[in-house]
């Protein structure tokens, strides 16, 4: 399923995107302006937003209110107990007093903040390092000539076809042999070689004229100088797109962190969230806390998306079009 973009196609896409990110087809405009035809779309929008609305409002409801049938749409009383309940006493549980999210995990230094830190640390490390080594490789593959280049590139592209779960178990055993289970190493290092990034950046670089690089070489610039001074600035839009992809993908990663963490303090937010849910099972009393944790887990990626929306959409369109 290698979707190889040719130079001209990329340029064409670029040009299309440049048109102020507009997706309109001017000619089709007139045929769809009926007001009533839009009703289904607004109904769907409601379904799209409802879970977010529920996540936010429920995290501010009391246990009592969460149990009301039918559920209240707007919280009767906004309470912070699901995050932090001042009345909570670890030596005397009471029915309507919550052990708020930031009061749980008394044995962890920084409590719930530890998971937030883990998630950010893992994410930032992976994103920076993976883009660095990926762009180096992409530069070499697209602008250097060496023996075996085609084979290397083919293997990298070919690996994209293999579902990552195939390597899951040996990956786990490898972490075990390295003594990396339950450490940040196990999170970060195996996540660094991302074939898609090399593929995407290589495609992007082939659209950049070789002459730029050649000229620099004639001027006596070293390969690393060329990489830092010429290639990186040129790659900027592609790198930004890939950065967003990687960051969001890694943030929401679940199965691998689930497997490599053996103690609570090393969990990232999604794993902590699943553990929270498993420990409280379906008990309605913990639902508010779970929603609070879900909200905290969701906010960073959504914020990143809003902040970088334009690059993001362009990145997707670029990676998907043929």
């Amino acid at each position: 399923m290698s979707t190889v973009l040719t130079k001209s196609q990329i340029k064409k896409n670029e040009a299309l995107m440049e048109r102020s990110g507009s997706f309109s087809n001017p000619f089709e405009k007139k045929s769809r302006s009926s007001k009533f035809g839009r009703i289904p779309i607004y109904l769907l929008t409601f379904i799209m937003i409802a879970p977010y609305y529920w996540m936010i409002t429920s995290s501010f409801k009391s246990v009592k209110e969460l149990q009301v049938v039918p559920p209240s749409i707007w919280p009767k009383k906004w309470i912070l107990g699901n995050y932090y309940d001042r009345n909570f006493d670890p030596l005397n549980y009471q029915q309507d007093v919550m052990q708020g999210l930031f009061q749980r995990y008394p044995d962890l230094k920084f409590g719930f903040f530890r998971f937030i830190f883990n998630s950010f640390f893992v994410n930032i490390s992976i994103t920076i390092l993976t883009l660095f080594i990926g762009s180096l490789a992409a530069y070499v593959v697209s602008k250097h000539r060496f023996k075996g280049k085609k084979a290397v590139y083919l293997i990298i592209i070919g690996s994209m076809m293999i579902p990552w779960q195939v390597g899951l178990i040996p990956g786990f055993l490898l972490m075990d042999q390295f003594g990396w289970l339950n450490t940040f190493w196990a999170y970060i290092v195996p996540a660094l070689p991302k074939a898609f990034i090399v593929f995407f950046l290589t495609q992007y670089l082939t659209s950049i004229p070789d002459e730029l690089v050649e000229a620099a070489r004639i001027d006596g610039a070293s390969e690393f100088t060329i990489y830092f001074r010429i290639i990186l600035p040129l790659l900027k839009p592609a790198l930004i797109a890939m950065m967003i992809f990687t960051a969001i993908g890694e943030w929401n990663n679940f199965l691998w962190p689930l497997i490599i963490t053996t103690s609570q303090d090393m969990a990232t937010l999604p794993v902590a969230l699943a553990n929270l849910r498993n420990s409280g099972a379906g008990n309605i009393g913990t639902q508010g806390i779970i929603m609070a944790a879900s909200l905290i887990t969701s906010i960073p990626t959504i914020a990143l998306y809003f902040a970088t929306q334009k690059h993001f959409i362009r990145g997707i369109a670029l990676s998907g079009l043929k």
Partner: protein
Amino acid sequence: MKSEISSVGPQAIGKKGFRRFSETGISTYLMLSPFVLLFIVFSVYPVLASLRLSFMRYNAICNPDQAPCGSVGFGNYATLIFHDDRFHKALSNTVLYVIGAVILGMIASLSLALALQEDTRANRILRVIFFLPSVTSGIAVVLVWGWVFRGDGVGLLNAFLNIFGVAPIEWLATTWMAIPILIFMSIWGGAGFGMILFLAGLNSIPAMYYEAAVIDGAGPRQRFRYITLPLLRPVMVYVGITGIIGAFQIFEGVYLLFPTSVGSIGGLRDMALMIVPYLYDSGFNKFRLGYASAIAWILFAIIFLVSMINLRITRSLEDLK
């Protein structure tokens, strides 16, 4: 093209060995090696090792060459294919799910793209809303859906239906509903992503095609049938294949919404058991790592075959024209 001059870089002296393979000398290898080394250790090796494991019985604690562990030949595959009812259930569930999620998902994405094509302020906001699930943590989303589909009166959907006098429905405990619910969740989560791809595709269709069609007297339906659809085919292939690959790998929804008893996955009568959850169950609940590796390779074989068939069909369709 690269000129001969390029080989006369500053580092030309003293790197004869590398020169034989590359014009740019050692820097080629310096720059390539971080990725390639990591790639070999963490991407290539695990895949090959998992192939070897799939012919073994292994639990990570035993010595791999001694009983109770050791080679079982094609034993794991034979058991999976001929004897393991849970795997068969997982396979048939997954196939149903993939078909539903990919086809309906594609229709949803394309419809959204067509509906939100016009570049108005409202549409730009709607696009953002529809895209939101693609950037939201899957676990968080699943947990909210778990609440929506609760079987009692507190469940959101039941509360809503109750307005019309419908008695609470046991959404997550009714055998035939599991896969439709998972398909719904998949469309909710993925339609926005497909929509963006289709929008880009729609945008790349030159307006003059439509103008010419109108002059020839083609109505909106004909324009869609003879211009939009054929020109969107590459996008459809891409959305279809990535959708299939993604759908085969479903995990979170099953893991969180359909637990069986303590330490097992699949829901009532394994109604929601799928391939990757079964792989997790075998590998990390039971620690039958060889067996789980065989499941992973069967998954790979299926995805590979389906992608190839899909590509072949598309290509032959194109040849028809």
